[in-house]
Each structure stands twice: as C-alpha cells, then as structure tokens.
C-alpha cells in the first residue's frame, strides 16, 4: 500500500511569530496548536462550539479552535493565551482575572480571557449587557460568572476605558 502525503504546506503567524506548518486537510486548529506547537492553553471540552474552552483569535476574532480547520489559519494571525503576556508582565485582562479571583479550576480561563481580549479590542467601552452577551458562549462551571464580569470591568479600568452603563 502506498501512502500519499496529503498534507498542506502553509505559513501562519502564531502569537506574532511566523510558523511554517505541514498539516493534514482535516487537521483542526486546536490539535495543531496543542500537539505541533505545544501551545496547550486552549482546551478541548465540548468539541461542538458551545463551551468556549478552545477560544483563540484569528485575525482578532474569537473562534472555536476545536471546530476550525488549521487550513483556515493560512496567511492569518492566530493569537492564543500564551501570546498575551509581555515577558513577565501579564496582559491587563490576565491581571484582572487574578485580581478578581475570576478563576477556580482554570479550565475555561484561557478561552474566557481570549474572548474578553477580543471584546475589549473591538469594543473597549462595552457595557455590562454587551459583555454578558459576548461571553454567552463561554461556559464556566465552577468559578461563577460574577467574578468574571468583575474582572472585565477591572480590565477596562486599567486599560483606561470607561464602560458604558
């Protein structure tokens, strides 16, 4: 039996670094990030775009890495939670999650943080209703949402934005 290499050669930017990849057409972005690139922040959980644990940003927009083909990242910029900190300095959203104790088991946290980063980049002054609506697709089963919403407000404050009422 002959084995045909069906893999696609492509370049993508991951956390600001250009990466050359050879991926199978059916490879999911989450598996490439975790298995090939060792970026294990994004987690697999529901596997059907409902829970948000696998949230990463592609061209600034949050996507479910569990259900997006790696192929979709070709020539595009992917950002994961590993790319947020500047050396030892955490991103304001990460700092805010710590300050607000907005994490307990931490499984949803990387996805939650990436979703919040995307929201505050698109809508820095998002009000509580907008924040809740945006995070509707990120499920936490132990921390509780109140402290997560508190973290968003704290992040907005440190980032110099005044949330709309």
């Amino acid at each position, binding site marked *: 039996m002959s084995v045909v290499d*069906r893999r*696609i050669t492509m370049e993508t930017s991951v956390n600001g670094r250009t990466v050359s990849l050879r991926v*199978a*057409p*059916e490879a*999911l972005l989450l598996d490439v990030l975790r298995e090939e690139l060792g970026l294990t922040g994004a987690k697999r959980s529901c*596997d*059907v*775009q*409902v829970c*948000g644990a696998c*949230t990463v940003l*592609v061209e600034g*927009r*949050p*996507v*479910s890495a569990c*259900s*997006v*083909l790696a*192929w*979709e990242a070709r020539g595009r910029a992917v950002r994961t939670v590993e790319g947020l900190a500047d050396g030892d300095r955490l991103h304001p959203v990460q700092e805010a999650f710590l300050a607000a104790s907005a994490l307990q088991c931490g499984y949803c946290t990387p996805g939650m943080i990436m*979703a919040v980063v*995307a929201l505050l980049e698109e809508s820095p002054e998002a009000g509580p209703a907008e924040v809740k*609506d*945006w995070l*509707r*697709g*990120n499920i936490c089963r132990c921390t509780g949402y109140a402290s997560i919403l508190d973290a968003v407000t704290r992040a907005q404050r440190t980032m110099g934005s005044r949330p709309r009422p």
Partner: protein
Amino acid sequence: MLPPFDLHAPSTLAEAVALRQRWGERGTLYAGGSELLLAMKEGLGTFDHLIDVKAIAALHELGMVDDRTLRIGAAVTHGALERSRLVAERFPLLAETERQVANVRVRAVGTLGGNVCFAEPHSDPPTALLVLEAAVTVQGGARSRRLALAEFLTGSYETALGPDELLVHVDVPAPPAGSAGAYLKFGMHERPTVGAAVLLVPDARRLAVAAARVAVGCVGPVPARRPALEAALVGVPLAALAAGWAEAEGAAEGLDAVSDLHGSADYKRAMTGVFARRALALAARRALGKAA
C-alpha cells in the same frame, strides 16, 4: 477528530460547479464549517472532498443591488451581517436576528449561505428571512435559478439545491416603509426551541396594522409563515398588540410541530403562541415609536 478528506479551493463559480460535478456525493460544499464539521465529527456525513467556496469573490458580496434589494453573498458571515451598518439601518430585523445566532465564535466563521444550505431546523436566520421574503440564487452547470427561500427549504436538513449546484447569494427586499419588525427566540440549548419573526406595516395614522407578516421557526421541519394569523392581524390596533394580544396564541394553529430534544410538539406549540405574542408586542411598540 475528523475523518480524512481533501480540500479544494476554487476561485470561480464555474470551477466550484465543475468540482461538484466531478465529485458528486463524495464531495460537499464547505464555507465556515460551523455545521458541517460538527456533523462530520459525529460521523453523520463522510466526504472525501470538501470544496471550500470562500475564495470565490462573488460569494462575499454585501450591498444593495438596486434601491430596495440587499444582496448577501453565500459566504458572508453572520458576524459581518451583525456588524454591517447598512443591514442595521435598512434591515434591522435581520440585524437583530443575526446578533442572536449561537455565539460570537460561531458568528465569526458561520456563513449565511451555509446556514441556509444546511437547513438545520433549529436555526434563526431562515425564520427572519421568510418574513423578509428573501429569495436565493443558485448556480449549476447549465444555468442559475432563483427561488423563494420557502421553495428552497424543502425539509429538515433538505433543500432544493441540486447535486451540481451551489448557493450564490440571498436577496432580501427592503421591508415596506414605516414597517417595524422583531425577532424573538427561546431555548434551553445552544440552538433555539422556537423562533418568532414578525413584521408589521402600520396604517397611515400609525394606529392599527395595515399588513402583517409572521413566521415561526424551529417548531417543525422548516420555518413557516402563518397566513391565517397574518390575515387576522389586519386592522388590529397597535396598542392592543403592544399590550399583549391574546389571539396571537393562534400562531401555533395547524403548525407542523415535531417532538425532539428541544421539547414535545405540544410544548413547542405552546411556546410558539407565547413568543409570537411577545414578538408582536415588541414590533408594535417599535411601530408606535416607543422604546424597544
């Protein structure tokens, strides 16, 4: 994990059609993958070839083609519709519906064309598009065809799309001047149990309904207009609708309701009445110029 397949990325409609003809049932169309990839993960569909249509420029059109027709290319995402100023200003009912689709990640990749072609019965946009009287254009090897959305959606996960065809765009006629619409949904899962879309055209004095359109989705295999209720709404004072019009419960009458994971047929019928009444109240308040 997904089963193995090959990806093809045609850059023209003709190339896409040729690939459809070449692969037949071994291939399928792929855009955002927010429906297809999940189904493939569950083993509900196996294809050797995915035809990625996103490189086809014509499928990304979003704009007015004439004074009163919005054209939405099949590969335009829910997120693009949600953020479009044109859609928000001239098609607020569609914008309101798109904002409610699944979650922000699904909306970032999921396309309107994919949504319509997958014909998932528990979906939001088709219900609103029925009320807006949208039409779809499909391209096959020999010709293109234009169908009303109601003709295109033939059943649960079934459409009139031929094996060598692809959906090119959805045309949405501007709603009548002065009309007000609303889309409300209800559900306990990610997908809606019931969706209700209404559009009210007020009379010249803006006191009563001159014409009404009502559609209900998710309850049966395909979303459905409610012609008897639409007729009964003519002449009803907007104030009565805004206060909660009991006769709206008739929205469920004669509806082909299906029992499924989202609820029994009886339960879905009951919720249909409730959400039709609330959607009519919201649209009436908007028509009266009161806060939404």
